[in-house]
């Protein structure tokens, strides 16, 4: 007998995503929702959406949620978690949000070992506002605010969030993943799950960086975008586990 083996997870709301065709935000949302379902924490979870394309994320998950001011999701989540220590709290943030304006908040949440989880979506660009340079934008990459290609001399270097965060003592799980193929999707989900488990165990701060596409602002179609990510982003931002103080699960 056939059964729906793969289907939209429960924790995902009915509302259709507002993302552009082929944008990885949707894949990542689904993975988070699957993890919430599997850990059976839907009723206990609070989420903090950022400003960015995923500003509507608080409507896409069937959990209590809010939108933080740009970059401040880790502080908002800290306030929530301290008020409700027995709840699961996660933030979902883009690279402009987390690695530019929100630098101080993410570093200090990590350093405090705040018992929250952050899903960090790195697409090397400001998606929502129309394709401006992010701190993560690759050298040479043209964006609307680096129209001649990013130059280290004037615009600085791509910032490596996971490499920075691994230096904070409060982080207990930190991995960089991608969702560029079904195999990677499976790994990404495992990483997200481990990050949530770290929080559930009260170990400290956990973060999963997901390399992601922005077909619209990269000016590529969804499939080309994945190729570009594989060829360029993975070189600058190598996939891997940076911190794992969780150990084996199950």
């Amino acid at each position, binding site marked *: 007998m056939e059964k729906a083996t793969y289907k939209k997870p429960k924790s995902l709301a009915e509302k259709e995503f*507002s*993302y*552009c065709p082929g944008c990885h935000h949707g894949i990542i949302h689904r993975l988070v929702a699957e993890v919430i379902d599997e850990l059976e924490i839907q009723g206990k979870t609070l989420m903090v959406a950022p400003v960015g*394309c995923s500003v509507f994320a608080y409507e896409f998950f069937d959990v209590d949620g809010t939108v933080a001011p740009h970059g401040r999701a880790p502080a908002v989540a800290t306030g929530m978690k301290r008020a409700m220590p027995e709840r699961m709290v996660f933030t979902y943030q883009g690279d402009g949000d987390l690695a530019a304006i929100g630098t101080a908040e993410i570093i200090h949440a990590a350093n405090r070992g705040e018992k929250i989880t952050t899903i960090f979506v790195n697409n090397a660009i400001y998606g929502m506002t129309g394709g401006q340079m992010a701190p993560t934008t690759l050298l040479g990459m043209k964006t609307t605010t680096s129209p001649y290609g990013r130059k280290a001399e004037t615009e600085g270097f791509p910032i490596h969030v996971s490499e920075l965060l691994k230096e904070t003592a409060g982080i207990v799980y930190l991995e960089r993943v991608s969702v560029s193929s079904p195999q990677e999707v499976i790994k990404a989900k495992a990483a997200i799950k481990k990050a949530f488990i770290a929080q559930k165990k009260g170990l400290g701060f956990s973060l999963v960086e997901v390399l992601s596409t922005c077909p*619209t602002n990269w000016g590529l179609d969804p499939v080309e975008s994945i190729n570009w990510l594989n060829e360029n982003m993975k070189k600058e931002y190598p996939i891997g586990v940076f911190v794992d103080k969780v150990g084996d699960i199950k």
Partner: protein
Amino acid sequence: MSEHLLVAAGFGGQGVMLIGQILATAGMFDNKHTTWLPSYGPEMRGGTANCTVVVSDEPIASPITNTPNELIIMNIPSLIKFEKEIQSDGLMVINTSVVDRDTIRDDISIIKVDANAIAEKLGNLKVANMVVLGAYLKKTGAVTLEGVKRALEKKLTGSKATLIDLNIKAIEEGMKSVT
């Protein structure tokens, strides 16, 4: 009509913004008063998008309107959103290649263009927007074709300049399609 209050609406990538800009710029070359104002939907770039163009013989108070007298409709959500707002006796130009349903309004003029098909015949699906613009111009005469040509020259520069002819061709085909 002495004042054209046009909303051109579709989804991202269909070129509705460009329709508006060409029209407004042409208006300027025709020595009319003219404004263009964009509006993006919640879907950021991939979702719905529309712009409002005013072309008028008098100074323009507001570049925004809740009650356009002209519509260019490039997809179904836009049809649903804007058919409620158009003034009676207004004009609606529909790209039927994408919009395969009818409007509920019976108090307006309607022009249907199978713009994608025409554009494909021209060898470039991207100029479907210009086909629709052509149809609109034929019906309204809002601006001169001369103005439109100058606008295209302003807009398509550098390597894109080679596309000017194709765009004009598309506009002309659009005009022809209105009977």
